[in-house]
């Protein structure tokens, strides 16, 4: 019984959300608006649950002996500091909260993101090997696009950016559209199974 209730709720809500796209009457629009509001409320509740989980997990790490204690303490201190700053001094321009975001969080995140530049280089060096005909085409396309997407390509020849445009607009686009259609159909089938109650992975376990 306990598992049947969420499945029934899912089915009713799924059918309603599909139907409201085609039905434009007043009561349906009002109900749709209420659903959108509740989506935001549920998201915030889930976020609170997540924060609690993070805090509990970090506290467990602190209680356990080992090097993880230091990092968990820093993580908890970070959460506490930002909460205090935000509530205490606000989040408007010039506030300590925004200063911490600009001077600490943003540079840290940018640093991690910048790893991509190095990882792309090492993955490209490792992965672009011309072992057979298809991989030769891949390597050539990669080289043309690498040079064509920066001013160097235009300096080598106007044909380079034109070729890049052709590669992106024709063969790459065709492949991308085919994959998108397949993915779209997969998502559609999964959504139909969820609404029909056949797909229950969101409940966890079986």
């Amino acid at each position, binding site marked *: 019984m306990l598992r049947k209730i969420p499945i029934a709720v899912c089915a009713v809500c799924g059918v309603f959300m599909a139907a409201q796209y085609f039905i434009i009457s007043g009561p349906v629009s009002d109900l749709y608006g209420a659903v959108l*509001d509740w989506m935001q409320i549920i*998201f915030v509740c889930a976020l609170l649950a997540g924060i609690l989980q993070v805090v509990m997990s970090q506290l467990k790490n602190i209680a356990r002996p080992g090097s993880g204690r230091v990092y968990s303490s820093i993580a908890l201190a970070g959460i506490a500091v930002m909460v205090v700053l935000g509530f205490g001094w606000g989040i408007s321009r010039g506030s300590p909260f925004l200063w911490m975001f600009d001077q600490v969080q943003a540079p840290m995140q940018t640093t991690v993101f910048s790893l991509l530049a190095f990882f792309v280089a090492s993955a490209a*060096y490792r992965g672009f090997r011309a072992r057979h005909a298809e991989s030769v085409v891949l390597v050539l396309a990669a080289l043309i696009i690498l040079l064509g997407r920066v*001013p160097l390509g235009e300096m080598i020849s106007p044909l380079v950016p034109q070729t890049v445009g052709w590669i992106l607009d024709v063969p790459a686009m065709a492949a991308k559209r085919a994959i998108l259609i397949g993915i779209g159909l997969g998502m559609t089938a999964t959504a139909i199974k969820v609404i029909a109650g056949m797909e229950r992975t969101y409940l966890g376990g079986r």
Partner: protein
Amino acid sequence: MNIDRRIIFVIVALAVAIPLVVPLDLPVAVTDETRAVYDRLEMLDSGSVVLVSFDHEASSLPEVRPLAEAIVNHCFMRKARVIGLALFAEGTAVGYDILNDIAAQQGKVYGHDYVYLGYRPQYTAAILGMGESIREVFPTDYDETPWEEIPLLQGVHNYDDIDLVISVADGSLPTYWVEYAQARYGQEVIAVLTAVMVTAYTPYVDAGQISGILGGLKGAAEYEKLIDRPAAGKRGMDAQALTHLAIAVMIVVGNVIAFGARRKKKTAVAGEHAV
């Protein structure tokens, strides 16, 4: 035979760092995609309402900020009224900074020429909700000023009163703008993206679901050239160009080494069989 990854990392680091110290000043040619976005914004009348959504994280700031600054600059130059908001938590502070910085440079007045509404979670619900009533989704602005006290927002109810939505994103948010705002409400959308996302949204441009794409540091450099305000985009292009060249050279070197190794192995095997 593989080169140690650390050597590759050092090469990339040098390729990025050297042009920042010794600018190469490479010429930037404007592509059709960038020009299409520029032409669309040139069609904005004075007083048009443009919604700029900062749908990105702080991590992509070096790439997204020059794009956002260039596009917001152009909106202000066209005397459009800009409503800023964020559908990613981290984009909130960034968007707030960018909007205020550019507005200050252009002498724009908060509440009359631009406003910043702040962040709303659950972007699907927010995008769909704004189609019905923007005020319901954002009853106050980021500084908690009530809707009715902001002159710019009077007369702006939903997408019917918005001339253009510009999604500044480093992820898949423009997809949701297309699927919900454009498909359901007919709202015109322009996507301003990191370079890696551009190819994902070209099908939408071809299908007419997105009016234009501005992508990557190159897009920023091209747009800065069009609005005649060179900035971080132009500076970054030199580093990007040299890095691309370095990666291309490494791919060629890797293939040459691999080819040589395969040839050596074949010769050795042939020699063993001959014996």
